[in-house]
C-alpha cells in the first residue's frame, strides 16, 4: 500500500505520515499541492491519496476532479483531510467522488476509522 500525502504545510504532512506509520502504512510520499501531486502520481504507482483542500497552486478539490477525470487514476481512493468544514464543501467533495472526509483538527482514532471504512467499502465493491 503506497500512500501519497498532499498538504501545503510540512508539519501537517509529517503528522499524517507519522500517524499512517503508526497504523502500519509505512510506504508514503509527500506533495505540497495538487500540481506536484499529479506529477508524483504520474511517476510512481500509488494506491491511496490523502489530500488537504486549501493549498496555493492547485487545490485539493481540483486535484480530486483531475484524478476522477483521468482514466489512469479514476478509481484511486482519495481521503480529504481539511479545515474546510462547510456543508456545501463536504457535499462538493462527495459529488466529485471523494472516498472520505476528515475535518482538521482530527484525532488518530478518526484517521484510523475513516481509513478502515474506506477499505471496507472498497472491499465490498470489489
Amino acid at each position: 500500500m503506497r500512500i501519497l500525502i498532499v498538504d501545503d504545510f510540512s508539519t501537517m504532512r509529517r503528522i499524517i505520515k507519522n500517524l499512517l506509520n503508526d497504523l502500519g502504512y509505512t510506504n508514503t510520499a509527500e506533495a505540497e499541492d495538487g500540481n506536484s501531486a499529479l506529477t508524483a502520481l504520474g511517476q510512481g504507482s500509488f494506491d491511496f491519496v490523502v489530500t488537504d483542500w486549501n493549498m496555493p497552486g492547485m487545490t485539493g478539490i481540483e486535484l480530486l476532479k483531475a484524478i476522477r477525470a483521468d482514466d489512469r487514476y479514476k478509481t484511486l481512493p482519495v481521503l480529504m483531510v481539511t479545515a474546510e468544514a462547510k456543508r456545501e464543501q463536504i457535499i462538493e467533495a462527495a459529488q466529485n467522488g471523494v472516498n472520505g472526509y476528515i475535518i482538521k483538527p482530527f484525532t488518530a482514532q478518526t484517521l484510523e476509522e475513516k481509513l478502515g471504512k474506506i477499505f471496507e467499502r472498497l472491499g465490498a465493491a470489489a
Partner: protein
Amino acid sequence: MNTVADAAGARAALVEKLQHALDALEQGDEAGWRRELDAIAAWRTQPMMQGLGRLARELAQTLGELPPTDAGELDDACARLDHVVEMTEQASHKTLDLAEQCRGYATQLKGMDLLPEQAALVDSIGKGLSEMALAQSYQDLTGQIIRRVAGIVRRVHEGFGALGLPPPEKTGTSELAGPAVAGLDRNAFSQDDADDLLSGLGL
C-alpha cells in the same frame, strides 16, 4: 403630514417649472426652456447628490478614526504575519523531532525486561508523545488563518491604493516593536550585540 405637504409643494414647483419651460418653448426662447429643464434635472438629482455627500463625509470620518497607517506599514504587517507562520512551522518541526526521538527511546525501553507497571508507564509515555505530535497540527490551522488575514490586509491596502486616498498623517507616538523579525527589523540586536553594548556601558 409634513411629507404630504412636501410632496404637494414639490408637485406645485414642478408644475410651475414645466409651465415656464412650455411657455419659453412656445415663444421660441431656446435658452429659456433649456434653463428650466436643467433646473428640473438638477432638482431631480439633488437627493442622490446629498446621499453621495453624506457617504463621502462618513468615509472621511471613518478614515480619520483609523490608526495612522501607510502602505509600508501594511506591507510590514503582512511580512510579520508570514514570519509568524514560519516561526511556528520551525517550532513544530523541532517538537516533532523531539517527540519522535523520545518515542524511539520508549520503544527501546519496551525491549528490555520491564516490570508490568514499568511497561504500562512506557506505554503511557508513548501515547502521550503521539498526542503531543498530533497537537502540532495547530501550526497548520493557525497558519491558514494567519495567511487569510494577511490576504485581507493586502486587499484592503490595494483597495485604498485604487481609491487614491492620501495616507492619514502619522502621529509622533512610537510603539514597542515586539519580537524582531529577520529581514524586516534591520536594527535588531542579537544577544551578543546587547552584551557588547552593555559591557561598553560598564555593565
